[in-house]
């Protein structure tokens, strides 16, 4: 917390709960990307209601986003992921279509996979201009995944975990923004449809809103909230501004299995079953 708090312009203070309630305009920040969708419209509407009714509606919306939707989103995510993975896994054995050379041993395959996942070697070798931005974004996402894991099992000190989350957010935010700019110029522009930018925007918002609201940094409150969800005793987060990050996280979970961001799972099949072949 202390080490990286300088990076957090809107880091919530311990008594921020009360502050947020007092200033609903902050909690109801309807920044870019949150407009338009029916759910976020309802949030904006509910926030307006909240302003009028002095927080009553806000609590309902908070409960919906913070305690109900997480389960819906997780359910959709798991079911969607299962559906898509089975869709590929149940594929009939296609004709051999390997590319040589490829690793023949499990150790060799693991090595190539790990090196590719951690260093994005293909981009480094063949498409250098995308490598660094992509690497930053991916490492940011890896950091955030690790942050979530470390947070839940409470393995390290809050300082370390918070730092992991903050760095994850920074890397993912910078990487996704950089990638979006790269995409807007040169050969990639002709190749990109709006959904490519939306994917990057979603990652960017997840990262930035997580930083701004302090969700990544405030490990005690984040942990308490997430554990509540996992132990089926959901409570809206103590810090209502977290709701923005939670809502984005829910959107992300719902969208993940059906969009191209699911490529990490597809990659298993395209490498292990196609490019590297499969024993008969």
């Amino acid at each position: 917390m202390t080490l990286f708090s300088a990076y957090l312009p809107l880091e919530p203070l311990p008594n921020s709960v009360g502050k947020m309630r007092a200033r609903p305009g902050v909690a109801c920040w309807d920044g870019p990307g949150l407009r338009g969708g029916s759910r976020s419209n309802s949030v904006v509407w509910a926030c307006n209601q909240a302003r009028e009714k002095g927080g009553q509606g806000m609590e309902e919306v908070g409960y919906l986003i913070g305690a109900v939707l997480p389960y819906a989103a997780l359910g959709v995510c798991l079911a969607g992921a299962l559906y898509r993975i089975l869709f590929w896994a149940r594929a009939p054995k296609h004709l051999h279509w390997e590319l040589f050379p490829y690793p023949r041993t499990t150790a060799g395959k693991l090595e190539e996979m790990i090196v590719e996942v951690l260093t994005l070697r293909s981009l480094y070798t063949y498409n250098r201009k995308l490598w660094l931005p992509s690497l930053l974004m991916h490492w940011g996402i890896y950091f955030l995944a690790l942050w979530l894991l470390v947070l839940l099992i409470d393995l390290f000190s809050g300082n370390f975990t918070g730092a992991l989350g903050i760095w994850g957010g920074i890397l993912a935010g910078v990487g996704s923004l950089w990638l979006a700019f790269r995409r807007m110029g040169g050969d990639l522009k002709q190749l990109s449809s709006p959904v490519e930018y939306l994917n990057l925007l979603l990652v960017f918002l997840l990262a930035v809103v997580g930083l701004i609201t302090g969700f990544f940094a405030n490990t005690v409150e984040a942990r308490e909230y997430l554990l509540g969800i996992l132990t089926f005793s959901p409570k809206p987060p103590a810090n209502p501004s977290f709701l923005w990050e939670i809502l984005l996280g829910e959107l992300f979970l719902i969208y993940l299995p059906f969009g191209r961001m699911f490529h990490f799972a597809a990659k298993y099949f395209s490498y292990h079953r196609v490019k590297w072949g499969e024993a008969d």
Partner: protein
Amino acid sequence: MRKVLDDFRALSDEVLRGKEIRVPHFLEAMKKSLDRRDNWTFWLPYVLSLDVCMKCGTCAEVCPVYIASGRQEVYHPAVRSELIRKVYRRYFTWAGRLFPGLVGAEDLTEDKLDALAESIYRCTVCRRCAYACPLAIDNGLIVREARKIFDAIGIAPDELKEKGTRKQLEMGNATGTPTAAFLDIIEFLEEEIEDQRGYKIKIPVDKKGAEYLLMHNAGDYLAFAETVMGAAEIFHAAGVDWTLNSPDTGINDVVNYGVFFSDVEFAEVLRAQIKTIVDLGVKTLVVGECGHAFEAFKFLMLRLVPPSERPFEVKSILELIDEWIREGRIKVDPEKNPEPVTYHDSCKLGRLGGLYEEPRRILKACCKDFREMEPNREMSYCCGGGSGFAIMTKGDFLKFRMETYGKIKAEQLKATGASVVALACSNCKGQFREIINYYRLPLRFAGISELVANALVR
């Protein structure tokens, strides 16, 4: 001819059936291509390649056509794939039906169909891009699947179908050579060997129960006879029980253009070839210097034909020569090939077939000065003859081959300083013959067998 994509036309208006309504038929065939049962042969790599491209453009950075053309958008491999993906999304995914603009989905029109048909004949399915792709997405496969869809609605280059697979099935070979003419050629080649080398060898034909049946690309008998002669000398020197076969026995042409554009044609040709091989009762089929035929027999056949129905071994002539040299069954003297020799990795033999070391060991044993071409092996640039292009010359198509793929290859060749480029694939030979003429390069091409035969010590 009217312009539909660029300055070239691989398919004539007649082949394209430009006056007919084709879109509904195309969509129906495409629907079948997306069915896991109807299209089980390539369904998994196909749907993966349609669904999860991240549009990073890495494919373009390694694509010979795109780079050599000065990065023209129409030749961008992922832009080409997007032509078919847009149709896929619009008609076969809910996101594309509901939000076409958002996800990049578009209606198919007759004009777009023309452009798509031409576009898929600007890629040789060399799969260099699939090798480099971080996700192993395969633009080459998408091209081939699109070719399959077009073939299903009756649109395929006549060089590959009417004068290719159909002719091969009818005449026994895609060159249309009848048995009498074939036997004349064999006799002529025996005389040629005697003239050149001063000894007489008998080239066995249609010998039942032989250990090895050597099946060449039938075009080699007409265009690259040195390869056929070289192979005969090598087999003779090895003292093995071998034979060639004539159209009398069925199919005497190892090519299978179905590999390029149609699983249906592929399977039909393969069945006829297997019947011929089984009828002859040979132990091993030796695939001559032909890239795609090696792919067909060594890989594509395995899951298509049950082992009991193909009771013979398959070997590339490269594998066999390499074995024989290492065993000492044939003796070679590199001093007999003193000129600098380089080797071009055929895509089908290398990236798709894994034969990288065999040709190199052979050439190092048979040539005094072997030089690598850069880049090579899995990053070898396709010469531009692949997927049937070597026999497609209509209109300005030869110019397309020369100004794109050919341009890179010519530069690579010059950089080696070699005076011979060794090739092990007929399509490559056809393309290099043109490259050497077009760019007036001071070198010649030679089949591996030709160089080995020249180095034989008797």
